[in-house]
């Protein structure tokens, strides 16, 4: 009972935290998308529909994590910050959900062994599924492009 109560009590706080974390990655994404020339923080807050208080907190958090750099600049007679990405996020899409990442017998996996990539059904399933998703995504993209042209 007490666990349930405490969990219920945690829910709104947890949700708020999740929203804030999502905002952090959205902010980072927007900064990364503006490339190495950076973006004025006021412009970014407008794009993300954030208050300057929330926006500044997020920017400081990203700076603390070493993901962005804040540079003080004079813009239209007012001091503000320009935000630059330091660490560009490394790509992981190509190996996402790959069974080898969490395979319990990976240490025994070899070409000649009983456990082998040659016969691994999980590896086969993963590659097939990924390709299926890729091709279906491509079809959707084509349909969307066609409909926007008409």
């Amino acid at each position, binding site marked *: 009972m007490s666990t349930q109560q405490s969990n219920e009590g945690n829910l709104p706080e*947890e949700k708020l935290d999740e929203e804030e974390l999502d905002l952090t990655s959205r902010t980072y994404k927007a900064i990364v998308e503006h490339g190495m020339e950076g973006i004025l923080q006021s412009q970014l807050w407008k794009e993300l529909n954030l208050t300057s208080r929330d926006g500044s907190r997020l920017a400081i958090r990203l700076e603390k994590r*070493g993901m962005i750099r804040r540079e003080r600049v004079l813009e239209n007679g007012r001091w503000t910050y320009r935000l630059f990405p330091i660490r560009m*996020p*490394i790509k992981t899409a190509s190996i996402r959900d790959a069974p080898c*990442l969490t395979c319990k017998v990976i240490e025994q*996996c070899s070409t000649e062994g009983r456990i082998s990539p040659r016969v691994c059904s999980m590896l086969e399933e993963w590659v097939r599924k990924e*390709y299926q998703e*890729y091709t279906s995504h491509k079809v959707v993209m084509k349909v969307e492009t066609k409909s926007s042209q008409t």
Partner: protein
Amino acid sequence: MKVEYEDSFVKAASLLGAEEYIRVARALLNNENATDEEIASATGLKINIVRRVLYDLFGHSLISGIRVRDPKKGWFVYRWQARRDQTDSFIESQKRKILEKLKQRLEYEETNEFYYCGTVGCKKMPFVEAMENLFKCPRCGKTLNLIKDEEFKETLKWKIKQIEEELEKRTH
């Protein structure tokens, strides 16, 4: 949970598990030197789940722990820290490992002929194995016929190319 534009540490953790890995990784970035209990309270996850994730991340050298004495309780606790310098190399080494497995599979698919009974759940087998089984499926008993799975080879080539391209162009 989308992690495309997250810190590489969160992305590395997300490769190893589901949502709980992402939550623990984010909590570790927000609270340096946190204990398992602090992470549990920050994430709302159960302590045993947090511990399981921490040990897994530690096993992959993505975090490090320092044993310190808890000043209030007197017992030893571990304070955990993200090893952010290790994350990019971890992701790259995983990519190379998987790439190698896929190449080995492609070579096997290209140098063998396969026989299959057509039953869902049964396996296709190379010529030697099919001959040993007298071209009868050992599982369902149906006749094994030669199959040409060109599509799978193409699929493997596509995935190999995708990983190679990512290795070449590392970041967004």
